[in-house]
């Protein structure tokens, strides 16, 4: 009838892993940010699925908190990206190595 908890957790794991692969393989800061947002979304699915399985409101409330923090994180992160593009003329994480020299 209704898909069980394992299905939702598996979907969450698949989305999380896709986001992780994006973070590890891409070099564009913007795409890395998108992948991080995708991972946060995957975690939200887990939260809500567990909340439903346990009949607890905490899962949904925590998903709301995650969305809030993700919005703040996106604002600050994209501001950093813009400042970076303005000062260094690149959004390639491989070329941002000023501190190394």
């Amino acid at each position, binding site marked *: 009838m*209704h898909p069980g908890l394992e*299905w*939702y*957790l598996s*979907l969450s*794991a698949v*989305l*999380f*892993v*896709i*986001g*992780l692969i994006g973070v590890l*393989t*891409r*070099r*564009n800061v*913007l*795409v890395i940010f*998108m*992948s991080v*947002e*995708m991972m946060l*979304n995957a975690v*939200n*699915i887990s939260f*809500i*699925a567990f*909340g439903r399985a*346990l*009949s*607890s*409101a*905490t*899962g*949904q409330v925590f*998903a*709301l*908190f995650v*969305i*809030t923090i*993700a*919005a*703040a994180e*996106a*604002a*600050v992160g*994209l*501001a*950093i*990206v*813009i*400042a970076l593009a*303005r*000062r260094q*003329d*690149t*959004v*390639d*994480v*491989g070329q941002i190595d000023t501190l190394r020299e």
Partner: protein
Amino acid sequence: MSAAIFFGIFAALAVLTSLLVVAQRNPTHSALFLVLSFLNVACIYVLLGADFVAVTQVIVYTGAVLVLFLFAIMLVRMEDLPEMYGGHPVQRFVGPVLGVALFLEILAVILSTVPLGAAGTFTPDAIAAVGGNVQAIGRSLYSDFLVPFEISSLVLLVGAIGAIVLAKPDESAARDRETSSLFTISLAHPSESTVASESPYTMLQEREILLRQEHEMDEAGEALRR
């Protein structure tokens, strides 16, 4: 029955669009596929009975965050996007391997039957008695989670201020140059150390010249009047 079918459709679409987000070369296309992915995840939330979170997801993610992403993509110049000249082959190999390893680990944990804790009071009957999902979430948010709620509002405020401060067009590069030229004691090149001390002097000179020009113009005006 029907819930399982819908779950299959939405899950398949979410996974497909997420893969496309990672695989697309152009970040604009990635952002647009991310919209589709978020919408499908919102549908999954609806299937799980989390209506309010689904609506918040659509408003915040596809409404606000994605617009922010598109703005950032437009503000960054397209010609220096890094994907155009190939990536590290090591990265491209190690990333998927680590990802698949992590997925297998999570799958092992999911499939091992872990007993869940005692069921809470957030049952469909209780939600219906309160008046709906939004009311139930609101009650929980304003009673059990009041302090985290207030803290999250503070986090949003700090995030907004931080974003403005960070994205402000800065004169810090010019300021850094000035301070470094002022405070660098150069022993090897004594001629460079005079550059900083020269600048106030040249400013004074310029001002003097301007004043002199003004004076001359005044004199010329007086001469004309005569």
